[in-house]
């Protein structure tokens, strides 16, 4: 692995030139796959993430069916070549946890009771990783759900915030994630201000935590606009076809 840079932040400027509360360039495209019912591709800084949605379809195996509502499956998966040291294929404890909290981050906006006995299956592939893959995945999955026409109350937007060189920073890059002091992924329903994912690793004072939370809110608002735009573009494109 590369060595720790001497400084992560120089005079308020981060390694990639951003300020503390700026986000990386984000490119969102909806409807990029043919087989899936809905899909989304995001390039977010150095992250390249693909999300696909299948369903609502019959939940299987049958004993998983819920007679009152649809179940959600969420699979976060890193491609072997997405990180510097090859990742062994298959789920590990980290991806099991991420899949769980991501599923719970999206559940609040889905009208699950419309589709009893069904399953809504969300697959997120991390093709290239550069910190913030779980929040990029949730953001992509949210667009893919909308692209699949799944009834939703709202979009969910997600972003990571954390601490590096003692400063609260929005949208960590890999170096800040590896050598920083805290990482806090957040997902929100931007319109209502409700939080649907909140995790924190590392150490934050209360003051830093409040600041981080506010940074995250601001970040999610930016992400939300890009998500909406990608869906509009997809709609316009499908109309013009």
């Amino acid at each position: 692995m590369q060595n720790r840079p001497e400084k992560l932040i120089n005079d308020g400027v981060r390694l990639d030139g951003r300020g503390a509360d700026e986000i990386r360039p984000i490119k969102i495209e909806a409807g990029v796959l043919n087989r899936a019912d809905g899909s989304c591709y995001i390039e977010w800084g150095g992250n390249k993430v693909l999300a696909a949605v299948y369903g609502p379809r019959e939940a299987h195996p049958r004993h998983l069916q819920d007679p009152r509502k649809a179940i959600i499956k969420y699979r976060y998966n890193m491609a072997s070549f997405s990180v510097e040291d090859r990742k062994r294929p298959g789920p590990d404890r980290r991806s099991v946890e991420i899949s769980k909290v991501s599923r719970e981050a999206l559940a609040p906006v889905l009208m699950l009771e419309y589709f009893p006995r069904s399953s809504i299956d969300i697959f997120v592939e991390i093709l290239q990783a550069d910190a913030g893959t779980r929040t990029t995945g949730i953001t992509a999955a949210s667009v893919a759900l909308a692209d699949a026409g799944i009834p939703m109350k709202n979009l969910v937007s997600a972003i990571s915030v954390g601490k590096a060189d003692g400063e609260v920073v929005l949208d960590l890059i890999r170096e800040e994630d590896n050598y920083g002091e805290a990482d806090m992924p957040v997902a929100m329903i931007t319109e209502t201000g409700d939080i649907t994912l909140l995790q924190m690793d590392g150490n934050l004072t209360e003051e830093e935590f409040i600041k981080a939370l506010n940074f995250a809110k601001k970040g999610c608002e930016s992400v939300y606009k890009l998500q909406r735009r990608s869906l509009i573009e997809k709609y316009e494109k499908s109309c013009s076809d």
Partner: protein
Amino acid sequence: MSEDILSEVRRDYIYRLIKNGDRIGGRKADEYRDVSVEKGIIARAEGSARVKIGNTDVLAGIKAQIGEPFPDTPDKGVIITNAELVPLASPSFETGPPNENGVELARVVDKGIRGSKAIELEKLCLDAGSKVWIIFIDIHILDHDGNLIDASALASMAALTNTTLPYIRYEVGEEDEALLIKDTPIATTCADIGGEIVFDPCLDEENASNIELTVTTNANGDISGIQKRGAGKIPFGDISQIVDSSRRLAGELRKKL
């Protein structure tokens, strides 16, 4: 079916109680059940503790081994946290490798310990690049009546404060040494039931809730871990108040260590 109806009835009951500002067992919203900590009960382990929070019963054992460090941290020891949700503890637990709940439980406990730097990993290094202490924290759930994370985190920290590294047995020193503990992160969990926040939810309360928030705080009041669980959402504005209550309740639990 009757099982479903029963659990719905129970959920309704809990819900109505809480809406009336009441709670099973007459507890206040931010009141824990009885908490007991018993240390050093497993002689074979390097450290151990059994924690009961009400009827919830958790045993944590610490084993230490000599092994190689990770290649990217050659001068640091290793902590591995594992939770066994053995089917003895609940009719809903199954045999087999840990499912997502077990994995999440272990990881939340683990991250609280790491985030607070409670154990100085550098002190676990015996020979940089080749020989370090590997500390296994094994959490064994014995009886499940809700709030497993707080009980597991408390049992793990209690067991760590009770741990002696077996230098003699591994022939790496002439005296066994107590594991050095630098902080005491405490996890506190609350559930949102119909918009009301209650701490230390018992199992029936957990079943009536679809959102829980675990906040781990340190001796100095810093936050060293947060995990939102469950398929619900929390209003943005509620968070900081929960963190405040967590810090205060953690202070009380910390005295039990």
